């Protein structure tokens, strides 16, 4: 048998439900297998850990070919909200929690949360703007230091 993975550091760079969930699920799944998990949020992925936005993340209905419908429908008012609400209900049934609860669950499981310094500067954010689970704001160099010896996954 090959060596087991001991540590993963997952970068979440994209916003929207479809951008944020894959990384969260992979991080949670890692902890469930006893794998150390670090999450590094950058660019629009950062919405998932900012107090103001984490509860309001929607699925992108425009420019998302995976929606299986003409993009023109996606621009209708309320369409993204409706698609999001449908998706959330389905996910809740299979026990995938809403983003704020998921962040809490992963933190309770021992996962570590970090915010990207460059994005924080760009969006003029402060430590207080993030949810309490965020350990610290770090630069790329520090991220590599934390990720050393493990796998890096970019989402």
């Amino acid at each position, binding site marked *: 048998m090959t060596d087991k993975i001991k540590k993963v550091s997952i970068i979440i760079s994209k916003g929207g439900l479809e951008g944020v969930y894959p990384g969260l*699920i992979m991080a949670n799944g890692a902890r*469930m297998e*006893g794998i150390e998990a670090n999450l590094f949020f950058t660019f629009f992925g950062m919405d998932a850990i900012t107090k103001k936005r984490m509860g309001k993340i929607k699925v992108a209905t425009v420019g998302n070919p995976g929606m299986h419908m003409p993009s023109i429908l996606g621009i209708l008012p309320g369409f993204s909200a409706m698609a999001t609400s449908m998706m959330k209900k389905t996910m809740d049934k*299979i*026990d995938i*929690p809403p983003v704020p609860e998921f962040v809490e*669950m992963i933190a*309770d499981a021992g996962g570590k949360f970090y915010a990207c310094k460059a994005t924080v500067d760009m969006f003029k954010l402060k430590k207080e703007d993030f949810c309490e689970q965020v350990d610290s704001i770090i630069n790329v160099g520090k991220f590599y230091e934390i990720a050393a010896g493990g796998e890096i996954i970019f989402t």
Partner: protein
Amino acid sequence: MAQKQYGPATVEVDAEGYLADFSQWTREVAAAIAREEGIAELTPAHWKVVEYIQKDFKENGQVPSIRKLNKSGVISTKELYELFPGGPAKKAAKISGMKKPEGCV
């Protein structure tokens, strides 16, 4: 189907050592599985989790997720990870005599 010695009993197991037949589960078997999973002794807190998992499976035909264990007030996620280090969902299910959980969360 393979057989395996867990404590005082020889039981039917799958390839990963999960019980194939729940009727062969006993508290002694559970304790032996726990030791193999690195849990030296099952405390009352462990048993509370095991009993809930078995009860919920009986009612719903599914091993409850970590989220459900937390939401039902049985045990917080933090404590669950402390009680069953290195793989709480899998270890708790195995000790409870359940099949390996298949969900992603």
